[in-house]
Each structure stands twice: as structure tokens, then as C-alpha cells.
């Protein structure tokens, strides 16, 4: 089962290495990991999507908590999860097919980010299911390259993870 963890950490050099090292040596599987600074520059938020049963999830949270640089952890429940991932997707495209891709982008809520004679690059920010559907739609045109940011997430509603 997939779990989304929101982790606030000190914005120090080496923090990411401590966290990824911990996942590796304890045999926890990371599905995706995204890092960025928060409203407080001294603090970064790491969003980790990890695979495992409840026992594994509990161990991950407890072991992460032991790291001195980790300030707070929350495992966000599926129904409370506001999650987004940004995908850039480059599709091979001759000029005569361009309008079809623009139409797909429009229906899917994606943006056309770059156009060349032989390609179109689209960008979509969405949850995992919508990204998968979008990718499937573009598949027949020939996908050249995909880059994804990894999931970032916040809890829905007024509650927030504060230090």
C-alpha cells in the first residue's frame, strides 16, 4: 500500500542524504520524494510516497523521527490528501497533428509549454490518476521524454503541519 508522508526538516546540507540513507538501509521503498523550502527558509518540506504495510509505515515514521534534523512528520490519510505532481511530456508531432495535441491538452487541463517543428511539450499538474490518463492519451502520438517532479502534498482543510 502507498502512504504519503509530509516531513518538515532543517534546511541543512546533508539532510536528504540522511533520509535517503535511512530508507535504503532499513529496506523501505520510496515511490517518490520531493523537496522544497517552506514559508520558513530554515525549514524544508519533504513529501515522501512510500510503499509498505502499516508496520513498515510505523517504523518509517519512528525511524525518521529519530533523525535530529527531522522536525515533524505526518502521515496524510488518503481522504485528507491534497496532492499534486507536475509532469512535462514531450511528444513527437508533425505540424499536421498539432491541433489534435492542443485539443487533448485543453480537455485535460494541460498547458502547451514548447512547440518545435517535430515536437510538442505539454505540462500538466494533477494527481497520479489524471497524470496516468493523460499519458495514456498521448501514447499513440509517440512520447519522446517524460519528467516528473514527484508528488507534493498538503492536508485538506484548515489544519497545518507547523513547527
Amino acid at each position, binding site marked *: 500500500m502507498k502512504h504519503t508522508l509530509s516531513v518538515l526538516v*532543517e534546511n541543512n*546540507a546533508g539532510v536528504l542524504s*540522511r533520509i535517503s*540513507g535511512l530508507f535504503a*538501509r532499513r529496506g523501505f521503498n520510496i515511490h517518490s520524494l520531493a523537496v522544497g523550502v517552506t514559508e520558513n527558509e530554515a525549514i524544508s518540506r519533504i513529501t515522501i510516497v512510500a510503499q509498505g504495510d502499516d*508496520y513498515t509505515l510505523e517504523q518509517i515514521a*519512528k525511524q525518521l*523521527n*529519530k533523525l535530529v534534523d527531522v522536525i*515533524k512528520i505526518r502521515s496524510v490519510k488518503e481522504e485528507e490528501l491534497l496532492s499534486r505532481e507536475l509532469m512535462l511530456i514531450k511528444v513527437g508531432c508533425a505540424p499536421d497533428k498539432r491541433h489534435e495535441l492542443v485539443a487533448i491538452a485543453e480537455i485535460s487541463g494541460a498547458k502547451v509549454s514548447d512547440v518545435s517543428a517535430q515536437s510538442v511539450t505539454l505540462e500538466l499538474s494533477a494527481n497520479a490518476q489524471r497524470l496516468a490518463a493523460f499519458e495514456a492519451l498521448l501514447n499513440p502520438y509517440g512520447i519522446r521524454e517524460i519528467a516528473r517532479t514527484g508528488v507534493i502534498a498538503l492536508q485538506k482543510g484548515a489544519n497545518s503541519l507547523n513547527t
Partner: protein
Amino acid sequence: MTTAKALVKCLEKEGITTIFGYPGAMICPFYDELSRSNVIEHVLVRHEANAGHAASGLARLTGKAAVCVATSGPGALNLITAIATAYMDSIPIVAITGQVSSEQIGKDVFQEADIMGAAEPFVKHSYLVKDAAQLPRIIAEAFYIATTGRPGPVLIDIPVDVQFVEIDFNPENYQDSNTPPDIRGYKPSVAGNKLQIKRVIEAIEQSRKPLICAGGGMFAAKRGKFAFEAMREMAQHADIPVIHTMMGISSFPTDHRLYCGMIGMHGKATANRALNECDLLILLGARVNDRAIPALTKDTPPKIIHVDIDPAEIGKNLNAAIPVVGEICMVLAQILETLPQKKHNEWNAYLNKIKSTVSGNEKTAENNARTDVINPREFYKTLNRLLPRDTVITADVGQNQIWTANHLSLGEGGRFITSGGMGTMGYSVPAAIGAKRSAPEREVIAICGDGSFQMQFMELATAVQHDINIKVIIMKNDRLGMVREVQKLRYDNNQTAVFLDGSPDFIKLAEAYGIQGERLCEPSNIDKALITLLASKQPYVLVVDVDAEERSLL
């Protein structure tokens, strides 16, 4: 003053009087200042790993953090085994390493190693000092982190150029680690949850066959008072028998009526029986690892109370019905406040009956009839009789560790120290040096095998140079005995790479260091040999010839 001098002053303020270390170019500014300290004496070890082990031995006996120092690159790398050994047994050490000059980091210069990265899996926390002005804060944090919560090693890596930087620092204003520094991500819990304590008391009240299992956490100390003192009070007050893991040895006097021995694959029958028949298991500072846990085989396991400072240990190996997270000294004090006085006559009589039958069997078991070697069991019997009560024994790893763990009998005040989690060979002699350094008045004896002795005998020089009067007992069977045993049992007796042919004459070797010694091979001489060893006012080496076929479980 320079950062190097500030570092010395901070260590003095933290109450450090001994540092174990080995210098090198990148830590020289610190050594230069250290030589001018009137408070701290530097003990020069002969290999960096042993600086770490010596610090570990000292920390275990005092319950306070101890310091080891090495230079950059290979010096720091050699420390890793000791750091990892301390990490596995939750021992508070502060390791200080020199690093190449800041602007050269990452360029693969001479004696550069990413020690922060390399030691990362084995430290509780680590610092690379980039900004010299931060050093006093880092030292206070390091000592605080090493000693509070679940104790462990903290590494401080200091580039050589940073050590020269002049900083504005007045030692009088140093906030030592007794004042908890404000670290956002580090707030160890101290007291146990009141509701959980209530549940603990209720469970003890209802239990007919309770059992305490003491672990290494028993040696966590608060203001010099060790947790095992409170645990003894608890056991006696509620009449609860006590078993322990290897890390918990000497937390409870072996001659006590409630004492049932060590659990686990190398443990005592009484302890394992007690574990399987109790209805309430109270784990105190024990994580019960894979070597201890096979003992619990019953289909309907007992109700488990798990007291540990580390929430991650609770539920990791065993499911606890009543978890209590907190500093063991605090939690025990909380329990003692409302603990009912109880009697478990039937349960204790039952266990005592097993104890006497089992030890009766042990007595009648066929003793080795040879008169040219020493039966370890007989040896320990005499040792137990002659040792001063407050003796400190450090055991190495291998058969000698199991023999010592099972047959050493320490009374109140005695202390057993070994590398329990990591099982690091070459631990006993440097750990004994560290222990003796903190308690010169106590008898400190390292017990090792002839394999492990050869990983650490260079430290005899350290003992001689610094007048550290340790005794070393070498259980000599010309084999790596435990590996030989595994090969015999599991590899069709294909004994390979376990023969220690080519070993030197250890008595002559000791003599070369100016140390007296004796070889013991006649059973009738055990008494005399041990009396001589204990009477020696200088380091002393006793080589005990043991039958190569001797098993770990005697």
C-alpha cells in the same frame, strides 16, 4: 581565541578529564591546544578504533559521554567500527575528527575521507563544522544528544582551517549540555505517560506469574544513578523474578533469590523457561533482538509491558500490550511510586526448583577429564570466588563471550561490559583501559580469546605508558573457537580458516611490553594463578589453555 582552544575549553566545561586519541596533521591545531590543558589528559592509543572502544568502556562505567579523537582520512575511517559498536549498544561517545581544509573538501586530497557520509548509518547525529563561531553550540548539542534520549555516538568533523579561526568565545559563558539546548527536531521524552504507568501497575497487580527482562537500558544513568538500582527495588518490592539479555548482565546480582539468568539462544534454561511460562513480561530497556527472541516460542505469548526510551524499538521485535516511552530512570521512579507490595511464592518457588535442578545437572555433566588444559567452567567458578565484588569484567566476542556471560557471577556492584549488538572482536582490552581509567580503584579485567587478543594486543603499550593497571585473561585454544563450532555443526565439520597457528608466545609478548604474565594449563593451579593476577599492581596477562573441542554452551 582559536577554535581549537575553544574546543579544549568546551570539553573541559563538559567535565572531560580523559581523551583517547591518535593525532595526525589535520587535527594538530587541537592537539597543540590540548597539550596546554591542565584538566584533560590525553591517552595515546595504538589504533584509532581502540580510542573509540576505550571511550566506550569509560562511558559505560560512568554513565556519561566520553571523547575519542582521530585525524582525517584513515584515522577517521578507523574510528568507524568503534562508532558503530557504540551505536549498536547505545553508548554515549563524542568522536572528534580532523578534516582537510574547507576549500579542499571534495577534491580527493591527501588523507581526505567523507567521514560524515561514511559514518552516517552509525551515528545518532553528526556535524561538519563549517562556521567556526558555531563550535561552542555544536559541542553542547553533541554532548546533549549523545547522553539524552537513547544514548549514542555523535561525530564532530572539523576542517583544519576552521581550527585556526579566531572566534569570540568566553568559556565562562559556555552553556554546557546540562542546560538542554533548543533543538527543534530533538525533544526526547522523559517521563512515561501517566495513563500507561497506571496500566502497568494494574497489570502487575493482576499478574500471577510476572517476569522482568532487563536489557542494556538498565545502565542508562541519571545524575550518576543507574537505572538498575531502581529495577532491583521494583523486583524486590513486588517479588518479581528477573531475567536479562546479554546487554543486561550485571544489572541484577546473580546470587539474588529472584535471579533467573540470561535468555536467548546462548542463555540459561531457567531464564528461557521463565520467559515461556510467565503471564506478564516486563521488558525494561531491552529491545530483545534476534539472538534473544527465539526463546519465546509459546503459542499464547504473555502480556508484554515494554518500557523503552526509543519509540522505534516498541513494536519492532515484539508486540507490546502496554508500551511506555520514557527515560528508564524516570519511568521506574514513576512505577515505584504506586507499585503494590506483592508475593509470588508459588511462581518463585517453581523457578527456584528449575534453577536447582538445572544447575544440579550442570554439576554432574561430564567434566573434561584432561589435566593439561583448563575447563572453562571450573575456571569461572574459581574466578567468581576470588573476584572483589565491584570488579569490572570486559568480555570480547566468541566463545569467551558466551562463557563469561553464562558463568561469570558478579555480585552487587560488579559490572559486565561487552560488545553485545555489533559483536566487535578486539573490544575487551581497550574497553578495559577506558573503564579502568574512570575507576582506578576497581579491579578491571579483560577476558578475550587468542583470536581477539591478536586484534588488540598493541594496546598493552597504552596501558603501560599511562599506568593503566588492567588485567588480561586470554582463553587460548589456538582456534577461532566459535567459528570452528559453527563449522562443526553446520558445515559438516569442514574446519577452515580457524587455526591460529603462527601465533606468538603471549607471555613473551607481554614481557616485551614489560608486562608480567603466566600460562595456566594445570587445573590444580587455577587458584594460585588467579590470586597472582589479582595481587598484581601492574598490568598482567594470564593465558589459559582451553581444549580446542570445548563448546560455547558448557
